[in-house]
């Protein structure tokens, strides 16, 4: 089987982290984001993966070589010379996607969920349509485009963009499976899969939904990345609880790399992810936060709802909160308070940041 991952551009929404690494390589739960998708695809029997990008992917290409061998999968870059939207890249990668008659997956790269690819194949084959869209239920459908099914059926009747009256609470989760015939509907020109391709297939009665079990999150920006981390850990607790950290200093779910060092009298959790080589001092309090590889958290620091970039240092008695994001190699002095600071790489912070702001 085959899959196309819509990687797109520079990932500006996830800056300052994406100033250092392309977004697919930024770790989510101690693993590059795109690997969550690649692993799940390979597990479902996918052998060819196309990454649709619209920038030159030198850094990514080197990483992907490694993963090709590790996961025994062919990874190809499809480079757009002009942005082709969400639909155009399918046409551009037609050679690979149409190389056999098996259906293929299309994924938005920012989405994190339990990736039920095998069930998607089964459902897709069972209804015999051209496409199946994974849908997730949301509390406030008025902010999204919602999907309305034909009554009592998985078949899609219509799409309603930002409904003002309740018609459905199912929204497109950004993960699809298509029969190769869909490729006949798309040209390699800027195209929106959601606004142009889907309504056409739906009109032909050949587009269906599959309800996504479990959690779903678009982790393309820091606040959602943090929420997604919590959802991921909760899911991990249900499926692979042995991977979560345990001990008297753990309070709630935490994923801690085995190479991390943790001092005395700390309290860690809930929803904490600690990367490789992290050093945590004594009396440190962590909750709802992500520490990327090589960060150093000194004694008595307090961190909540923040992302600490690679190899950054947080001083003693520092307090970080309010969706603070430290880029790569940022140094926060002792006793500093940061509320919602977005700090670009290689900066030192030695005065308080009391209100959300960007430190260039």
């Amino acid at each position, binding site marked *: 089987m085959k899959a196309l991952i819509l990687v797109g551009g520079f990932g500006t929404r996830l800056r300052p982290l994406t100033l250092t690494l392309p977004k697919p390589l930024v770790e989510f739960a101690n693993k590059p984001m795109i690997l969550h998708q690649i692993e799940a695809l390979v597990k479902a029997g996918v052998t060819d993966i196309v990454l649709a990008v619209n920038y030159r992917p030198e850094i990514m290409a080197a990483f992907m070589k490694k993963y090709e061998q590790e996961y025994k999968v062919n990874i190809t870059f499809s480079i757009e010379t002009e942005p082709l939207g969400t639909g155009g890249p399918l046409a551009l990668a037609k050679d690979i996607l149409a190389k056999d008659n098996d259906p293929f997956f299309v994924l938005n790269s920012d989405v994190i969920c339990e990736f039920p690819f095998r069930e998607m194949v089964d459902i897709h084959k069972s209804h015999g349509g051209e496409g199946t869209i994974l849908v997730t239920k949301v509390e406030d459908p008025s902010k999204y485009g919602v999907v309305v099914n034909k009554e009592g059926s998985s078949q899609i009747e219509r799409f309603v963009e930002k409904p003002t009256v309740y018609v459905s609470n199912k929204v497109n989760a950004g993960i699809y499976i298509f029969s190769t015939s869909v490729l006949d509907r798309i040209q390699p020109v800027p195209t929106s899969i959601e606004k142009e391709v889907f309504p056409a297939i739906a009109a032909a009665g050949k587009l269906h939904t599959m309800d996504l079990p479990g959690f779903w999150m678009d982790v393309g920006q820091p606040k959602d990345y943090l929420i997604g981390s919590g959802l991921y850990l909760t899911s991990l607790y249900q499926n692979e609880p042995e991977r979560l950290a345990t001990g008297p200093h753990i309070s709630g779910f935490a994923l801690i790399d085995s190479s991390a060092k943790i001092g005395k009298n700390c309290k860690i959790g809930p929803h904490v992810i600690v990367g490789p080589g992290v050093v945590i001092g004594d009396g440190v309090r962590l909750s709802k936060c992500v520490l990327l590889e090589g960060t150093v958290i000194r004694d008595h620091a307090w961190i909540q709802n923040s992302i600490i970039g690679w190899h950054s240092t947080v001083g003693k008695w520092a307090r970080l909160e309010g969706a603070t994001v430290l880029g790569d190699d940022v140094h926060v002095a002792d*006793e500093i308070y940061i509320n919602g600071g977005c700090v670009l790489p290689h900066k030192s912070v030695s005065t308080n940041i009391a209100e959300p702001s960007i430190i260039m």
Partner: protein
Amino acid sequence: MTKPGPATLKGVILVGGPSVGTRFRPLSMDCPKPLFPIAGRPMIYHHVAALAKVPGMKEILVIGFFENSVFDRFLTEVQMEFPEVPIRYLREYQALGTAGGIFHFRDQIVRGAEQFFVLNADIASSFPLQGMIQTHAKHGGVATLLVQRVDKSVASKFGCVVAEPETHEVLHFVQKPETFLSDMISCGIYLFNKDIFDAMRTAVQKRQARLETQGGDGDDLHKGAEVIVLEKDVLAKLASTKKLYAHVCTPGRDFWMQIKTGSSVIPANRLYLQHFLHVAPRKLSNAPRPAGDLGATTTTAVSPGSPPAPIKPIDPTTAHVIQPAYIHPTAVLHPTAKLGPNVSIGPRVLLGPGVRVRDAIILDSVEVKNDACILNSVVGWDCKIGAWTRIEGAPGESTALNATLKGYKIPSATILGKDVTVADEIAIRNCIVLPHKDIKTSQHNEILM
């Protein structure tokens, strides 16, 4: 008894009364402002200590309109520390104004003394009294006032002094002038000959005459006559008469600041502690003893007047103290706590593991749980601070008035009144909290009633 030597002197400390000092709330709600502890000692202890050191000091008189009992314990304690100088409290039964109180008690002040100092209570200073005595002897006038140069932008908030550059004779003295007059301000510290009472009597008579022409009932008239303000009614009138001279604080050696708002005790505490570091290191202290079990109760009651522990070398079994710091001997500090600089820790305070305190006053019986951080703040009596909680005020000078945020005045230091409980893991920043509050969520730039 007429052996030549230093002039016979008395000291007067003007403490005002309970109705003044509203800007010192909420700290004045549980402690008379003149007794609020700064650098481990009541505010006016520093005045008493400076006066008691002056050769020839016969007596120190504390004048105000607080109840007598307010100062009983303080007077007993300072009397024990300075047994050679009698110290008494004289109560005005009504507010008589800064000069009114002095004039009212003139007989007791001049009895046995040729000159007397007058010190306002609400100041922190190095009190260069010896220098004032020399200046006073040199010019032979009636009064010497201590002046200090301040930034031009704040000068007109104070009594401004224009002095003749050579002789330092005061040519002009205006309280809070509307436009810039001078960057030299009066510190509220004076040295007078007893002839000053002539000037005061003139002021009283003038006021009486004015009241008589305006009418009014006799009793009120009598009371009103004595309400005279030292700066405005007496000293301003002495300018340009070769009776009033200025002694200028020595930059870099002397310090002076007003203690008006609650926030100003933080810089006052810092100034005293740093001063002690140079002139009286025995008034500072390291961690009192190897901190044992934090649950252990302290039984050794030590009165605030007893001498503090001498400075010991840094000991890994005691808390890390960065000087200057004052730590009461009954405070219990965990060895992993870190304090200072510019910290005063009161009696029976309990600081848990990994607690950080800097630029702060922690009052009696406060309990701070593990890993909490207290910066630029006053933590009132019996407060309880939760684990990993941050109590923080904005650093900054005190003479500076409160800053404003979106049109509202915001406190520059965080001040917790008596018996405030702060939950674990929250942040209280730039807040003033009134007594007996229970705070469960983070707060910023607020006054919590």
